[in-house]
């Protein structure tokens, strides 16, 4: 059973009277998780809103084919804080995955259907909880803005087309050469990306260079030596290597 003394300290239940808090309490389920456990996954139906009672939960984005990592954490949720509020906002799908990052986590979970019924029965409760939620999102907006201001933004994007045809033609080696060259420079505004086939299989490996303010340039029949030349001459030196450009 989740206690009223806990609920009254929860950020989204501020300014509720005892009767309203008791109503919320009746919908709460106490759950426990161990370190590393996934509470829910990105894209799943947001069936519950959750509050951390003890421990810490990290909200992370998942990268395809890669294990979860703290590097992917967008925010860490501590005691009395709410997460999983996607259940209040269409399309009611969790937008990040949640992982327990303490030895054990205790979480209070409220089912969306119970919460909706509670709001319908007592619009005053609904109004206060949603107003508090807007305040919580406002604070998280600020945190995100702070986070975003510390992230470099790219002025240069180098896209190695790594479809099956590209890989067969040597795109992996081209990417390897690009990574080597990027490691030699301290430029933070250059980003390497990979994508699928460009639709010009006969000219693979293809590489697209996008420099802010200029038209994209597609290079064809690339190999590690050509990639190094393009990186040094075009990306760093500003001289398009016309002999490799795809017409």
């Amino acid at each position, binding site marked *: 059973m989740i206690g009223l003394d806990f609920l009254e300290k929860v950020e989204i239940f501020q300014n509720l009277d005892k009767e309203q808090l008791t109503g919320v309490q009746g919908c709460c389920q106490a759950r426990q998780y161990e370190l590393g456990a996934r509470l829910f996954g990105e894209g799943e139906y947001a069936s519950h809103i959750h509050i951390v009672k003890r421990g810490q939960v990290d909200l992370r984005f998942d990268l395809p084919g890669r294990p979860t990592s703290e590097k992917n954490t967008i925010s860490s949720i501590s005691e009395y804080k709410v997460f999983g509020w996607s259940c*209040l906002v269409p399309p009611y799908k969790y937008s990040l995955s949640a992982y327990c990052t303490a030895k054990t986590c205790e979480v209070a979970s409220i089912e969306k259907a119970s919460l909706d019924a509670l709001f319908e029965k007592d619009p005053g409760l609904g109004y206060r909880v949603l107003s508090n939620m807007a305040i919580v*999102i*406002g604070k998280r*907006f600020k945190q995100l803005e702070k986070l975003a201001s510390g*992230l470099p933004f790219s002025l240069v994007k180098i896209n190695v087309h790594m479809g099956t045809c590209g890989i067969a033609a040597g795109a992996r080696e081209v990417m390897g050469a690009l990574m080597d060259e990027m490691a030699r420079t301290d430029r933070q505004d250059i980003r390497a*990306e990979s994508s699928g086939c460009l639709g010009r299989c006969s000219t693979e490996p293809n590489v697209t260079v996008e420099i802010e303010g200029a038209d994209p340039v597609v290079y064809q029949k690339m190999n590690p030596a050509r990639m190094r030349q393009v990186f040094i001459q075009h990306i760093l030196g500003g001289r398009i290597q016309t002999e490799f450009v795809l017409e």
Partner: protein
Amino acid sequence: MIGLELLREIEAFKGLDDNQLVAVQKCTEKIEFQRGDRLFAEGADANHLWIVLDGEVILRYDRSEGRPNSSADPISFISEAELFGWSSFMPPYQYRLSAYCASRRCEVVKIAKDRLAKLFEKDNRIGFVMMSYILRVIGTHFYQFRDEIAKRWGHDIMSGW
């Protein structure tokens, strides 16, 4: 003040009865702007919610230092029936972006936040219906912003392999 028929058509007020709409109506004001006019400035106190009735409004940063977008880059286009100025319901209660009229002319509803908040307290049903809608709008923008960061961050991680 704007007409009741018009208010009934606006998504943010769906679910309110005529008596409640009349109460909301008293908080509204209809204003027209010409292309290039500024509706509000980034960083100013967010005292109003806005809804576009006709035309188009763009939201953008006026101050571009340290941001990926130049000051001229629009962040969002707001079309008919869309609500904006929701910073009026979130701390620090200041507009995050500036709003400009982007069409030859635009017509907007301006709703005084203070009066609306008093109305919400007086009639919690209005508060619940409207906050549900406002939260939906805020949530959608929050997700878009967070997705953009996750995308940039994900690219950085992918670039590190």
